[in-house]
């Protein structure tokens, strides 16, 4: 399998979620808990404060799954989640970090 094909397959099999949240202790736990209780693996997590630090942005790399629409609805219901957006797996946020994740 050549590299292009591998990327294509990844693009098909993965999704990137961008989640705006309030920035305080426990919020990450609320979000990832929704995945772990369903035995739904989160492949990648990135989180940093945004602006004055009142809010954070969580980026999740997850596998495409028939349960993903339900997961997004469940995340939306969390009190500390302000917004959630779904992107394709080729979103730059994770691909540009590759250098930090060499074996």
């Amino acid at each position, binding site marked *: 399998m050549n590299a292009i094909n591998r990327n294509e397959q990844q693009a098909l099999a993965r999704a990137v979620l961008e989640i705006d949240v309030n920035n305080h*202790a*426990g919020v990450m*736990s*609320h979000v990832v*808990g929704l995945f772990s*209780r369903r035995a739904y693996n989160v492949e990648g997590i990135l989180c940093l404060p945004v602006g004055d630090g009142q809010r954070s942005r969580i980026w999740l790399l997850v596998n495409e799954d028939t349960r993903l*629409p*339900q997961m997004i*609805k*469940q995340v*939306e*219901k*969390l*009190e500390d989640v302000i917004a959630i957006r779904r992107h394709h797996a080729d979103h730059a946020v994770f691909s540009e970090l590759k250098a930090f994740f060499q074996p």
Partner: protein
Amino acid sequence: MTETLNGAQITVRLLERQGIRIVTGYPGGAILPIYDALGQSTVIRHVLARHEQGAGFIAQGMARASGEVAVCMASSGPGATNLLTAIADAKLDSIPLVAITGQVPKAMIGTDAFQEVDTYGLSIPITKHNFLVSSTEELLEVIPRAFEIAASGRPGPVLIDIPKDVQARSIEITQWPEPGQCRPAAPAPADALQQAATMINTAARPLLYLGGGVVHSGASALAVELAEKANLPTVMTLMALGAMPVDHPLSLGMLGMHGARYCNLALDECDLLIAVGARFDDRATGKVAAFCPNAQIIHIDIDPAELDKIKTAHIGITADVSEALSRLLPMVSANSREIWVDRIRSLKAEFPQVFPDADRPLSHFGLIREIAEHLDDDASVATDVGQHQMWVAQAYPLRRPRQWLTSGGLGTMGFGVPAAIGAALAEPQRTVVCFTGDGSILMNIQELVTAGEEGANVKIVLMNNATLGLVHQQQTLFYGERLFASQFKAMPDFVRAAQALGIAAVDLDTAADPVASLHAALDQPGPCLIHASIDAEQKVYPMVPPGAANRDMIGA
């Protein structure tokens, strides 16, 4: 005016300002400042449970009977873990609860301090939301917010964990926040309602499927009005029983695993299912692929995550069901729907729900019938979990929303007695009957002491078959009759146990005139245990075997 108050006093004052008049709980070291402040309140009465789980279910009973947010309290560590089952139960049945727990002082959090447990972490998956309060000032924001969250949208439990030093620290208060109230939901989209109305108006065999959301939303009368206007035969989930009187001509009673055969067969034939405040629970649907196989689906629910979760809806409407139904009603045309109503009538005649031995007052159905006939619709009915629960769901003529208190989603044995006490506290003018079993009652029997202390008007009807009836039934039917751990060898003397715990008790087994004794016990104000032995071989029928389609019911 500036007041200097500590966090505990602020907490109690905010509860008073919320309109809370009863809290139930159990004290301990980490919540003692709040108990100290609570003891000074002239407005709030504290009901001391005998186990934190009892406190959680007493609060649930109050919330289920009244529809208002109820409050329970516990200390840190074991106090908090004991509350968790009642909180999880509230989550699954969408019951508005605010649970307040004490926590070790902030500086000791994470040190494995005495009676420290990660209450916040433990409660994340079983609450609608939770808070670990990090400063006394924050209480002014968190407590009203907790009530707002518990009551808004799909109701649910909210936990507030308050470290002891946050309770003890004093601050100056110049202004109090407004009490937290239910936020109104966004209105249903008009075009979706119009499409739904068109589907109802053109359907040949529509069915209305009511869930607990109809009760929570106060939409029962609207649902009945809609059913009557368009002649929609109506099924109810366990949680919705009483939303439409179960003996209403359009009612098909409870659907699903232990629903009437005619009810499940009607669902098989319908061409339109109008799901209102229901969530397609597996006990209701049976094998999902075979549930209403020929039907289009309209699904109205306040929780958008319920739409398309189990079954994809043709029209999904996120709305408060009261608001949606009130606007849907004028769009739906009156329709006598004679062919379909006739078909329902003939299904009922051909596949009736049978109540064996109902004319014998000491049989399981006979007891339920005798009690129902002696009481009126003002009485509330609580149950524990097991065979007795399903028999009452099948046979008790529930006619009023909030008349029925049962643990549906979590199916928690031990729910009945404390929930009945809570209902009696919330509505002291009513008689509350609690049907229970010999397995369930032992899981919270200590609350009989609470019932006695409070003089709660609860009649606990103990249907004793010395067996874990539903386990026994499944082992008999599906595990080659290999009965294991489902028959009790040692049995307490429940009548003497109840008396020892401080309430009146009557044994129908030995009464000279059992019916007269039953009536006397029901009529006497205050708590009473009514004990009756029943036959361990009786099954809950009909029954959909686990994993099977509803049409493949067995028995009766």
